[in-house]
Structures are given as structure tokens and as C-alpha cells.
């Protein structure tokens, strides 16, 4: 009996490497200046799924991502590491969703994919750091959740044991399956791409991408090979209530965005000189800041 894992992964702007041109002069984010990457903790999540696949024969790993058409990269990146297939939820009508509206759509997609034993995702994505979509998806699917996972210690049909990394210690928990697990960045790093798998999957395409290929031969090849087809899910494919998706389905609204302005203090600037530092330390002692 096959073991089916759905991995939730997200393509994110690399907010950790923000350059000078990342902000436009009007204070909004210049997304195009930021490279799009595989959300780091989702890679940790994928690795946990791959480790289960190493142990349980006949494991199928399905990647589910949501985003613009180019987020199909995430699915290919996963396939190069031995994920089996992927779904891209993409539709302009989903845009502007907060975590509640996002988890609603994801849960609907998971219901459509169906027949899963385990859902694994990263704890949080670096573009928002909210850590909300995992638990919210679990709630919508009425599944137990295990957050902050550092290691899936054992996993079999119907049962999972997980070590969790908490602020000041660890906890080992056991849960029935299906369940949703979110993986912490302290978990094992993801294995590198496999060159054979890269060759196998490099032409994997979504329907949208396929339409942009002029090469008839390539087109036909992809159409003949099911494993090269990345399935796209739009609003029409999912039984979503429209009032619960996108901006309209998001209870949180951004009232305003402030560009970070440094409130300049009258700083005293001193150099790395003995006299200056001696003076500074003397002041700190005299005004009882130190000692």
C-alpha cells in the first residue's frame, strides 16, 4: 500500500539578501530586484519527506505550491531531489490572500489531491515569518498538527513519532496519521539535486509553460510523458467559495506601509583612539551606567 506525502513548499523573495535596489523610491518593495528562492524551511521539510521515502518503499511525494506561474520552479527543484510529482495552484483571483485565505485554498487543493498519509511543510516562510499557514491548513482539514519538528523519528502507516525543537528544549510526540507536520530550520539540510533526476525532469512543464514552447517535438515529448507534466490548479478546479479567497477572503488588511526611516540621534562619533575610549569609559563609570 503506497504511502503518500504532500509537501507544501513556497517560492519566496530572498529577503535575507536584500540589496540597495530592493526598495523603490516610493517605499514599496521592488520584488523584481529580489531573487526568488525555495523557502529554506520548506527544503528542510522536503528532506524529511525524502528520508521517509528512503525507508518506506512505494512512497510517493507530491509537491503542492501556490504562487505565480514561475513558482513551477519549486516543483522542478523538488523533482531534482526525488519528489514524484507536483501541483501548482495559480490563479490571479487568489492574489492578495493573507494566511487565512491561503490556507483555505491550500486545504481545498489537498482535498482534491486526496488520499494522503502525511502533509509536511516548513515551519514558516521568510517573506512573512508568520508560521500560520501550516496550523491553519491542519485546522481546515481537521488534522492533528505537529509544529517545530526537528526530526521525524519514525513513521509508518497510521502513526508518526516526531522530535520537536522548542525555545528551551525538545519534546518527542506521537500522533496518529494523517497529520500535518511543520519542520523547523534546525532539521537536517536538504540533499543536493541529483544529476540523473535533473536530466529526467528538466523539461517538466506546466500547461501554461507548455503553451510558450514553439518546438513541436518538445511539445509532443512532454505530452507523451505524464511525469513531465506539472498540474496547474486554478479557482475553477477547486471548490472554493469566492468570498473566502484572495483579498476579499482575507480578514487582515494592510492599513499602511512605512518605509523604515532612521530617526537620527545626535550621535557622538569617536575614533578608535586610546584617549577617546579612555574618556568614554570614564564617563560611563562616572554617570553610573557601568559599575
Amino acid at each position, binding site marked *: 500500500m503506497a504511502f503518500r506525502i504532500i509537501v507544501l513548499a513556497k517560492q519566496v523573495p530572498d529577503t535575507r539578501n536584500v540589496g540597495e535596489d530592493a526598495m523603490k523610491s516610493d517605499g514599496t518593495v521592488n520584488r523584481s530586484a529580489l531573487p526568488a528562492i525555495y523557502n529554506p524551511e520548506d527544503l528542510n521539510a522536503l528532506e524529511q519527506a525524502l528520508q521517509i521515502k528512503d525507508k518506506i518503499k512505494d512512497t510517493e511525494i507530491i509537491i503542492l505550491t501556490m504562487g505565480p506561474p514561475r513558482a513551477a520552479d519549486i516543483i522542478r527543484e523538488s523533482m531534482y531531489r526525488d519528489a514524484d510529482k507536483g501541483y501548482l495552484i495559480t490563479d490571479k483571483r487568489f492574489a492578495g490572500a493573507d494566511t*487565512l485565505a491561503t490556507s483555505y485554498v491550500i486545504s481545498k487543493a489537498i482535498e482534491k489531491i486526496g488520499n494522503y498519509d502525511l502533509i509536511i511543510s516548513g515551519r514558516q516562510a521568510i517573506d512573512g515569518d*508568520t508560521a500560520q499557514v501550516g496550523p491553519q491548513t491542519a485546522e481546515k482539514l481537521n488534522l492533528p498538527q*505537529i509544529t517545530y519538528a526537528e526530526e521525524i523519528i519514525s513513521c509508518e502507516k497510521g502513526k508518526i513519532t516526531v522530535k520537536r525543537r522548542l*525555545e528551551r528544549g525538545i519534546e518527542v510526540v506521537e500522533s496518529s496519521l494523517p497529520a500535518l507536520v511543520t519542520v523547523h530550520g534546525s532539521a537536517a539540510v536538504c540533499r543536493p539535486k541529483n544529476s540523473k533526476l535533473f536530466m529526467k525532469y528538466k523539461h517538466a512543464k506546466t500547461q501554461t509553460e507548455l503553451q510558450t514552447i514553439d518546438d513541436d517535438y518538445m511539445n509532443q515529448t512532454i505530452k507523451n510523458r505524464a511525469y513531465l507534466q506539472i498540474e496547474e490548479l486554478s479557482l475553477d478546479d477547486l471548490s472554493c467559495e469566492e468570498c473566502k479567497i484572495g483579498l476579499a477572503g482575507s480578514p*487582515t488588511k494592510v492599513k499602511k506601509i512605512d518605509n523604515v526611516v532612521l530617526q537620527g540621534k545626535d*550621535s557622538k562619533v569617536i575614533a578608535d583612539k586610546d584617549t577617546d575610549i579612555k574618556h568614554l569609559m570614564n564617563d560611563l563609570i562616572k554617570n553610573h551606567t557601568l*559599575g
Partner: protein
Amino acid sequence: MNNICVYCEIEEGKVSDVSLELISKAVKLAGELKCEVEAVAIGSGLIDIGKQISPFGAHIIHSVDDKRLYPYTTLPHSAVFEHILRENKPQIVLVGATSVGRDLAPRIASSLKCGLTADCTDLVIGDYTDPKSGHEYKNLLYQIRPAFGGNIIATIVNPETKPQMATVREGVMKKEHAAKNFKSTVKVIDPAKILDKVDFAVKVIERHIEQKKVNLAGSQVIVAGGFGVGSKEGFELLNELAKVVGGEVGASRAAVDAGFSEHARQVGQTGVTVRPKLYIACGISGAIQHRAGMDGSAQIISINTDSEAPINSIADVAIIGDLHSVIPKMIKYYKEQSK
């Protein structure tokens, strides 16, 4: 008027600091909104819970005591908390942004279909006009947080849905005592009717929680290092300065991510918020997430080779130089003059 509700995190019978800080904040917000504060304590052995919470001014304490409710697991706690929220209909719900709160709050927000903002660095009451409909909303909770890698500060509101939920990290708000002899009303809730067998799908089979090793929030002097410290060994120098002047060592996220220091020492939006008498920032450029965790310090000294580093603009004294050369001088002259 609907109240403000605070979820109290309890570890070994003790209400955590972040929950008491949130109660203090809630008391202030409730003053503006002319409503009351309700604390929710869910756990086991909560006999003296009133004594712990009362001094901070929560008007009502909902106490739910059951052996099965400690240690924390998601489903039973969310079932009980959700029950209390549905019964009492607070307008605002505050939860600590800890591994417990960040596990619980989104689950609750999902089932109540309400908005939730994570890791807020400030909470303010204010009005909001919907830009499309022109509809005006009075006295909403402004949930303020750095976003997008800290390049912007976002003010989030939930105009249509209640409760308005937010999580806040430890140290962001200040713990403050209410008037002397303030007494909360304790309401005991029997969880038997709320909990179901399926709520116990997850069992804790092992648990090792250490006492807090580092007490950054309580330290009067903090010597913090950033990526510019360069290595784990480089932090030794900071340790030495901290030891000499009687302080604790902190670190920026970049330094923790690089493995120079441990997460427990991280200062900033995703770490601890501190307000010491003196904060010495060594090799820290001063990203907004870091500043959010330390800009309430009474005095800031920055040591940086880059005179343009953002940290310098909030520093009282900016020492332009290499920390490896500056710190030994600080140690030397402190020792010389402090006798």
C-alpha cells in the same frame, strides 16, 4: 463592550513572562477601549493561578484545570480556548509568540475565521477608513510589525472580523503591576464537557525543557555581536567585556544564523526584546528587526568599521573602528578607572 482576552502560557505551574507582559499591555488598551481584561489559564494544578495573575490587573481569570491539559498539546488547548472565546466574544485576543502561542493562535484564528498578525512589535488603538467603501471603523487594534525582511513596517487591521488576534514576543511589552490589592475574579471552567477523545491524537512521550540559561531581558548591560564579529572565537572578546563590566552577551540574527552565538542570545524581532541601561552593539549593522529589539535601550554604543552603518544613527556614541581593537581598549580603560 467586548473585552480583551490574553492566553496565559504556563510552564511547570508558572505563568510565563510574555503572558504577564501581554496582560499589562491589555490593561492599558482596555483603559482606552473602556472594557475589561480576561486571562485564560489552561493547564494542570492551577490552584494559585489567581495569585500569579491578579497583580497584573486582569479583571477575570478563566481557569481550566485538568491533568490532561499539561504539558501543552494543540488540540485540547485549542478546543478549550476556542470554547472560551466563543462564549465570551472578546474583541481582541493576545497570545505570546512562542512555540506554544505560534502553534495555538493560527489554529484558533482558522476556526474562528478571523485575522491574526504574528510577532507584533507594537499594538495601538486607532480608527480605520476602508479605502474602497469609505466605511469608517472606530477603535480598531493596529497591529504593527516589520515585514518583508524588515525593509518596511506594516500596520495591519482586521476591520470586519472579530476577535482581532495578534501574537507578540517576550520582552516587547513591559510587565507592569496594577493597583495594590487588585483582585481578579476567577471563573472555573470544567473541561470535561469540552474535550473529546479525538483531541488527544497527539501524545507527548518525552520532554526536556531547560531553565532559562540566559537572562538577556533582565540584564542592565548587554554586549551584543553581529556578523561583523566574524567568528565564534570573536565572541570570546565580547564575553570578556561583558564579564568585566557585569553584563550579558547578546547577538544579532545574522550572528546566530552564522553559528557564532546561540539562539537564546538573539536580540531582535525574532529573538528577545531588551531595554538595558547600556547596549553595546559590536559589528552589528542594525537592520530594523534588530533595532526593534533594542532601540528602547537607555544608552547605545555602536562599534563598527562602517561609518554609514544604520546602527550608528540610533547610537549615542558611535565608535568607528574594528571591534577587535576597540574592545580590548574598553576593557583596559574600564579596569584602570573603575577601581
